[in-house]
């Protein structure tokens, strides 16, 4: 592995991490340390039904001024606007999100609107903000998104017919509380899908154009942890050691891709998610190995690191051989954990992938892919291989 002589990068990861079983009980103490006095809790109905909110609101007591839970699987611009209006009505000065990627990204959008006013469509661009936004504490209930430590949010815009990418350094969550108990009851399919989301973040951070030594180190360790502990989580969801390690993997993969960025897998997953509503993590998991195969010639050194993390690189193996072993390992791993293998299992049709292939070329992620994607037909070929 080598880096260019003119290597230069910025690494940005300002989020404080609090980890441990029952650490979510510290939420009120941590909120005080951020100067928050009136918290709006952002979550979804599934999390409430799973009984994961009661403990949080009880700990917060009167400092919880409301719970906003009207959030679908893929959040939207209108959802964020409604959430922000709710938080304003309740005079919230801190946002606590409890959930997966859709919930966390909704909360990120709300933080911007609480500080800057207006509606989300007023913020059309990238890195537009000039000051710190409303403080945000994240308590993830999945081990996948990594959004708890990134500057990005992905929010569906039905008017555009595309997922909108918000990237704002002034809006990174201040604190993430990783409590393994919050993921204990996650069903197998969600555990597999969100786990493969984290795996995709780590692999894409390794093959992306702006990858650098810090993000590589984070990504490699995330893959090691996922390779070891994700199958344990699938086998026994109550194993809190494995749950905790998977959470840590997801978070450090978040730091990796939050700085190194992601590539074609995410561009395709965002697009097929927008068109056919395939859950993001599952779309990533289905596409990952096929996209690695597509990138193989341009990213062999990155995938050789994936092979090392899986413990597959043998003495004398060159980068290309190791990279091929990594692609094969990813296919096997995904099957081993019971992850869906084909988009048709998620109801996707030929006409969906045709639209999604076109849309992928305008997704912000694609510019960092190691292989320059020239035509939508190349993307369509990949989609067809996993349809």
């Amino acid at each position, binding site marked *: 592995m080598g880096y260019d002589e003119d290597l230069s990068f910025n690494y*940005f990861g300002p989020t404080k991490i609090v980890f441990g079983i029952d650490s979510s009980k510290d939420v009120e103490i941590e909120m005080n340390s951020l100067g928050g006095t009136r918290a709006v809790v952002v979550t979804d109905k599934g999390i409430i039904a799973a009984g994961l909110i009661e403990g949080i609101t009880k700990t917060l007591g009167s400092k919880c001024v409301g719970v906003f839970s009207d959030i679908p699987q893929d959040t939207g611009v209108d959802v964020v606007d409604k959430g922000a209006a709710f938080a304003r009505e309740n005079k919230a000065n801190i946002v606590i999100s409890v959930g997966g990627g859709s919930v966390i990204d909704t909360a990120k959008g709300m933080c911007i609107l609480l500080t800057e006013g207006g509606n989300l469509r007023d913020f059309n*661009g990238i890195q537009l903000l000039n000051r710190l936004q409303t403080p945000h504490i994240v308590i993830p209930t999945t081990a996948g998104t990594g959004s708890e430590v990134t500057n990005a949010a992905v929010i569906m815009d039905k008017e555009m017919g595309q997922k909108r*990418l918000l990237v*704002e350094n002034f809006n990174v969550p201040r604190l993430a509380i990783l409590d393994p108990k919050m993921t204990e009851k996650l069903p197998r399919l969600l555990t597999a899908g969100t786990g493969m989301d984290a795996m995709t973040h780590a692999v894409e951070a390794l093959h992306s154009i702006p990858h650098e030594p810090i993000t590589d180190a984070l990504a490699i360790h995330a893959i090691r942890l996922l390779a070891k502990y994700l199958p344990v989580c699938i086998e026994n969801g109550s194993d809190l050691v494995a749950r905790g390690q998977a959470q840590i993997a997801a978070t450090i993969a978040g730091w990796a891709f939050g700085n190194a960025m992601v590539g074609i897998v995410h561009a395709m997953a965002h697009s097929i998610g927008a068109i056919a509503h395939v859950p993001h993590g599952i779309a990533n998991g289905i596409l990952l190995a096929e996209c690695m195969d597509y990138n193989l010639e341009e990213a062999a050194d990155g995938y050789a690191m994936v092979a090392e993390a899986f413990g597959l690189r043998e003495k004398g193996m060159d980068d290309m051989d190791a990279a091929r072993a990594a692609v094969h390992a990813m296919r096997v791993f995904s099957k081993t954990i019971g992850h869906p293998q084909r988009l048709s299992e998620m109801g996707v049709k030929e006409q969906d992938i045709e639209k999604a292939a076109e849309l992928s*070329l*305008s997704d912000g992620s694609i*510019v960092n892919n190691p292989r320059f994607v020239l035509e939508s037909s190349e993307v369509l070929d990949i989609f067809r291989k996993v349809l």
Partner: protein
Amino acid sequence: MGVRALTQEWMDAYKAAIQADPEYKDIAKNWEGSVALVVLPDPAKGIPETVYLFQDYWHGDVGEFVVCDKDKAESAKFVMTGEYARWKQIARKELDATKALLQGKLKMKGDLPYVVRNIKTVNKVIDILGAFETIWPDEV
């Protein structure tokens, strides 16, 4: 003999270089709309006040290229804002424009998916900046 950066003379030279580029017309055939570059003040480097530059691009043709006022700049389809030193790094290809946007070294108001879809046009226009000699205000 070069031209002093961020002046009307420089904008004219830039426009001429784009028009003279044999590949530009084809690469930019899908691009429609104006771009404003906003250079934040840096008195120590010879930029006493904000400089606003307006550039109009239309399907491979180049229209108005002018030093302008704030209102005109803000009317552009895309408004990109950054420190003088960052713009200079980009012009000299010491800093990749996409990386600069993602890292917050530049700000961009406008439709990001459109820019991504036309990233080859953006890269070409930046490449052409190196086609003529520029005199930077802090190097005079």
